[in-house]
């Protein structure tokens, strides 16, 4: 990390960029995921993370992810986490190849914190989303080999005073989503559920329950999505982002929420047609 005299290398003291990625690309590109070239051929089966849902509510957003990771038809993990704080006022959820996705999250968190430390201010929410789009676009080569990473990003916009969320595609397309959205293998079922359960101006507690309900519905129809595990007491990761910042919902609360969702489904059950 230091040059032959032991002093910090020139790239450390070169002014100009507030971006950790730009600095790393200049200093040592081999440390970046985009700096690696892939050998020809198909990548072997690796761990995949699945469904993420997000929805807006009165005062912010809720983002939730199930805890299952799969490798082919095997369950690779029952307690993987796929929703993370990107910084104080935003959350990122990931679906796709788990190894690459977790690295993307780590780099993205670092990128935002690095900017904040160097500039002394936070990036705007649009700025953060654009930065993430650039990072996703950088891994297009990997996506073409079947190692796609699809993040879902949401946060509280301090300038506008509202919660907003963004989805991305592997080409780096950035799309602002209104009301609610889901990504990953169970997203089709989760979206159907959200469409029926979401209403404008819902309070935070209802938004948390709706997010868990959507994940339960996704787990019902998609084998790669895991529902709440009442035996092992493993609950989805649910994050609430408001003007007060990022907050992860406690396990005790989620146990109650999961029980409520169970109750709602039992109430409408009539011979195998549970919602």
């Amino acid at each position, binding site marked *: *990390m*230091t040059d032959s*005299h*032991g*002093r*910090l290398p020139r790239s*450390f*003291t070169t*002014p100009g960029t507030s971006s*950790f990625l730009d*600095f*790393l690309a200049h*200093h040592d590109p081999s*440390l970046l995921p985009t700096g690696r070239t892939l050998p020809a051929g198909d990548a072997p089966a690796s761990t995949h993370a699945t469904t993420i849902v997000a929805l807006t509510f009165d005062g912010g957003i809720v983002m939730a992810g199930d805890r299952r990771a799969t490798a082919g038809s095997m369950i690779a993990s029952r307690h993987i986490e796929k929703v993370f704080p990107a910084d*104080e006022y935003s959350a990122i959820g990931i679906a796709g190849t788990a190894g690459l996705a977790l690295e993307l999250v*780590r*780099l993205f968190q*670092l990128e935002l*914190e*690095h900017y*904040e*430390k*160097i500039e*002394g*201010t*936070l990036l705007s929410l649009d700025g953060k989303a654009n930065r993430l789009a650039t990072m996703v676009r950088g891994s297009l080569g990997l996506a073409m080999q079947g190692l796609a990473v699809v993040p879902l990003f949401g946060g509280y916009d*301090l300038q506008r005073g509202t919660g907003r969320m963004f989805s991305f595609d592997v080409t780096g397309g950035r799309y602002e989503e209104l009301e609610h959205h889901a990504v990953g293998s169970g997203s089709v079922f989760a979206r159907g559920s959200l469409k029926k359960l979401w209403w404008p101006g819902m309070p935070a507690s209802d938004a948390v329950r709706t997010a868990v309900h959507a994940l339960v519905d996704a787990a019902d129809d998609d084998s790669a999505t895991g529902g709440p595990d009442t035996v092992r007491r493993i609950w989805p990761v649910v994050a609430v982002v408001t003007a*007060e*910042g990022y907050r992860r919902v406690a396990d005790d609360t989620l146990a109650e929420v999961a029980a409520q969702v169970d109750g709602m489904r039992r109430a409408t059950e009539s011979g195998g047609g549970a919602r």
Partner: protein
Amino acid sequence: MSMPFYVSPEQLMKDRADYARKGIARGRSVVVLAYDEGIAFATENPSRALHKISEIYDRIAFAAVGKYNEFENLRVAGVRYADLRGYSYDRQDVNARGLANAYAQTLGTVFTTESKPLEVELVVAEVGHVAEEDQIYRLSYDGSVADEHGFVAMGGQAEQLTERLREGWAPGLDLAGAVRLAVDVLGSQPEGEPRVLTPGQLEVAVLDRTRSRRAFRRVAAPALGTLLGQPAGDDAPTDGAATTDGAAPDVSAATDERG
């Protein structure tokens, strides 16, 4: 062909050291001192945007006196060093000692090989989980490092300020006591009445060991007024001047207040 005059190495180094010392003495002093729940930093700095005290990493902060462009450059290098190290290994593997060494090598190399030494003096401090684990390193323009215990003063009249700190400081001081001592020391003068510094003239920050991850927090003017026991109204004109900096510092101040 003309021969260059011979200058002895002693004379050369002395000239450089004098040059650096003069530049540093022109700047306003920074005081760093440990208190029961962390490490406090204070300096006289009316600007709300050009900081002399900054966050480097989760539990590490940086304070500097001297030429702004030179220490700003070192600060950015420090943030890059810490973030790269944390990314390559793990967040807990970033420590103040490694950073202090990197800074010392940089300052020492510039002092001996380049035409002009860096006119800066730095403090790199890391807050531990208990007071015994706190580390405070003071780095000089020539690359010398001192491992300080309890308190440091640097900049113009560093010696007098250190003397006053030695009289006033004791282990286990609380935050209000530490900040009051730091502000009294900063306001003291070699002769005549001590100056009274208002919150608007001061830059104060702490590394708070009770915070979960990022320990660094700036103490904004209103909170500082409360700590000093001065009414916040005192610095109204300064606040008005500070708004020309734009809304950005307010945002960071708001973030800094959160856990």
